């Protein structure tokens, strides 16, 4: 494909996608497509067939562009972006995901984050979910020492920690966090939006500068 034809194709694609998403204009969508293609290009070397970003490549993107570090959370983000569950994030899924989840309104982000922490899709963030989300927070020292007694101590500590968290966020006292609980907590303190792990871009200004604004200039 010649570069001008390529450009046209991208513009046409941007046209269609920008009608479907809310928070980006056509120009921005175009930039995102360019960036997506560039990322795809990088992936091609290892794998011949390409229908989108695979899990690993996607995680690299999350790490590099959005400064995410938590592996567990990045897996969750991939699952949520990959709507059709085919193991790849396509260009449309990529832009849709960015639009709703990362660029969305606070309400959209609340839903996204809640969904992120509701590991089993039960509609609640249960004790088990919280345990899984927080257990790694003490994980490092477990490996270092690896003794039975310490393991028990860790368990106790995580349990105590869960009690503290539930006391704060479980407003209806049913031992799990409903969306209403979550929403109420976030309303009171916005930092709780990412209570159980950073899953939103770290101050998206940087991303805007790197991806959106920079490419607009080109």
């Amino acid at each position, binding site marked *: 494909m010649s570069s001008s034809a390529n450009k046209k194709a991208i513009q046409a694609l941007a046209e269609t996608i920008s009608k479907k998403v809310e928070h980006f204009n056509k120009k921005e969508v175009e930039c995102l497509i360019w960036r997506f293609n560039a990322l795809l290009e990088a992936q091609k070397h290892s794998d011949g067939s390409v229908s989108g970003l695979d899990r690993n490549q996607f995680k690299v993107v999350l790490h590099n562009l959005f400064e995410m570090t938590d592996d567990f959370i990045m897996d969750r983000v991939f699952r949520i972006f990959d709507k059709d569950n085919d193991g790849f994030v396509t260009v449309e899924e990529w832009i849709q995901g960015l639009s709703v989840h990362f660029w969305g309104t606070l309400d959209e982000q609340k839903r996204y984050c809640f969904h992120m922490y509701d590991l089993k899709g039960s509609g609640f963030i249960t004790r088990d979910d919280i345990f899984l989300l*927080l257990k790694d927070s003490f994980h490092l020292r477990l490996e270092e020492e690896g003794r039975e007694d310490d393991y028990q101590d860790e368990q106790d500590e995580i349990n105590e920690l869960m009690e503290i968290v539930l006391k704060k966020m479980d407003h209806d006292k049913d031992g799990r966090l409903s969306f209403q609980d979550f929403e109420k907590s976030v309303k009171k303190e916005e930092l709780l939006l990412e209570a159980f792990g950073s899953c939103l871009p770290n101050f998206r200004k940087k991303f805007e500068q790197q991806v959106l604004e920079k490419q607009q200039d080109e």
Partner: protein
Amino acid sequence: MGVSLSKAAQWTTFSPDASKLKSTPTNEALLKEILTFVEQIGSQHPQEADFTFEAPLQWRTTVVTSDLKSDYHIRDSTAWSHETDSREAPPLLTPFTVRVRSLGQLSMLIQAAEDKKLEEVQACLEVGSRLFCCPSLKSDAQYDPDFMKVEMDFLQFCSEGDDRLLKSVRYTSDFEFWNGCRAPPWRQAQGEICYVVIESVDTGSLNVTCCTAGVFLNGVGGPGALFISNSRKEFILNSAAGVTLWLLLFHTYIMYIHSVTCRLRDCCSFRKTSSKATLAELSSETSSESEEEEERPEHQPESDFYLSSEFLQIKKLVKYLKKGDQKVTLLMLCCMLDLDLTQDSCNLAIRDEGGLQFLLNLLDTNEDKCKIGALKILIRMSRCVPIQRSMEDMLGVRSLVNNLDSEVTKVKALAAETIANVANFPRARRTVRQSGGIEKLIKLLDCFLKSQKKSDHLENMEAARCGALALWSCSRSTKNKKAICSAGGIPLLGCLLTSSLESMLIPVVGTLQECASEESSRITIQSKDIIKNLVKNLRSNCTDLQIQCSMALFKCAEDTETRDLVRKYKGLKPLVELLNNTNNKELLAAATGAIWKCSISIENVLIFQNDKVLESLAGLLTAQPEEVLINVAGALTEFLQVPANKAVIRKCDGIKPMIQLLLSTNQALLVNVTKAISACATDRENMKIIDELDGISLLWSLLQNPNPEVQASAAWAICPCIGNSKDAMRTVLSFQGFGRIPDLLMSTNNEVLASICAVIAKLAKYKNILATLTDLGIVSLLTKLTNTKDDRLRHHLSDAICHCCQFANNTAAFGEAGAVEPLVRYMKSEDILVRQSATMALFQLSWDPNNNLTMLSRGAVKVKSLTDEVETKQVFFCSGNMTPPFSRHGN
């Protein structure tokens, strides 16, 4: 308490020569705890770490030079600390012996010991116990029965609970004498207070004698374990530093065993005291800026706070805050925001659990979300005064300043708001300046003013608002005012004045107002736009803003142009309207202040008088706080410069309250009131009232005031009174206060001298008084003053000499004392008033032939080209007097 400690650590013997720690589980726990403490000294208590011992702490060591890191100068098997000059200071480490001079050195050395840490601490402690047992401390601090009771209560507290140290603590006698002692009277004569038996958990009982000199163990042969309580802080700081160290160590131990005791606080205040001493010694700038600083004692939380669920919650939260990864940290930060951070006890507990340090450490990371959470907590904690000091001690102010350049606007805003709270005391304000904070705060204002994008507008505005708040706090230090001005802050603040947001305007005007105390900044502030906007905001609905604006005008209107600008922008009327807020005293003080300064321009007084301001002001002379009265009196003085107003003040009964204010003790108020009375007294009708109220004697008694300013302004006020009072002579003669005049003539303050000379000139008109003054040796006292170069003094001095010549042979006496020669020199003065009064004085002096000769020899006649008619006339008279010797000579 000390006894309990020496008992807790199980020494093999109490003999001072061979104290060895037994190897028991208790001792091991104790050692471990002390070790942890010592290792953390450098990071947790940096200032204490610098505290230098008077005598080095020395013990036998197994540490060798190869264990040491690069922080030391090492030669062969000897090492010197980096901090000391290797040539002069004794070595830190020689084979088998170590000498440390500060807690910091101790900490570093123990860390170098690697796996022998515990042994080192033990060796150190064993030596310490010898130090400890050795009563080399000469104390003038005396213990009393009440103090002993407090100590006993604590010891008894130690003997309660499951983890108790002591089995029991009891007095040997249940009978208590009226003076609180339990020792028999004949032993009391020896200074003994009571005897106590202490039983510890796993050793035998211990008999202790408490006496005024300290606490001693019985039967150890001579004075045994002397212990000094830390409630005598002055004593500790003067004592051998070795003991200071042990106190710290042992307190940590006590804290560990009884983390719920109320003694926690004691230890903290102790820490503070020691850091204060260090600062005073090490930092020279502290003294310059600490003059405004006052140490407030920390509020001591109720002891049952440490048993409350709130305290346990704090402990838990801080524990996980420190322990978890950033995810947990963020969660804990959110939970901590639910704590009642308006309570000092909560804040202090967070600090003492190590939470404050951790929060401050978060500021140095890249975790912006954690930073935001931490800052939200710090903003609230920093409203608590002891926390402000701790934050500065923990180097938190620097971290806050560093965050003012964050990429995240929210972080900048929160950091600035925290600085606004912390910069409540001089040392923190200095740190902000020294770490470049002033420039960064000003940059926040600049960012907002330059920000174009609408999306960022609100965020940038919040940052600018917080920046202004911080600048406002910082501007309370003189050097910061200058820094704000020289960094170009004032024009930016001026631009922000156009804002319509009160929350923005108050700190902006507040900062401008503070800066206006500095003359250099005032020039920049007195620009048209700033004055215009200040005037505009006088009409705001927000009282705080009105206060700040009035205060700014008060400071700026010292300058004529500003006064004209205030008039031009119609600012006088709103100032007058503010006088109606008689309930808000702060506002009233600010408004009267602005009116005072504005009324220095007569044009403004005339406008003020359209609104009958003089009448309103006279109404404010009673039942107001001193701040208001000072300004009202100042304003009245200016108003009374307009002759018509002298009748007005009489008609509105303003004189009586003024005279009553002469009984005040506030010196600034006295200065202003005497000035106002002085302006009143030039009117004869007013003077009648002053006489009726015995105003002259009240003024005269103010000559006794120690403040020279009060003395002078009282003396100036006396002058018109004497001139205008019908029976002034009777009044003045009726009190025997002349003795004060010779004293005041020996003052070093020229203003006092000039005013007293003026009073003498007035009094000398009455022969009786002049006779008394002459007896008091006034001639020689006045003559002594003639060498002055101060024209104002010269003028009144010449006047006084002139009038004193009227009595007996004073004329000759002045001549003999040598007054003529300097007066002749006064004729060369640039000041016409000096020349006039000197001529008059010389004229009087010329009645004495000898003086005439002196004048002639000094060339008095041709001294000056005559520029003034009066002067010419006087010189003519003078020459007239001079003729006789000539003619006599001729004959």
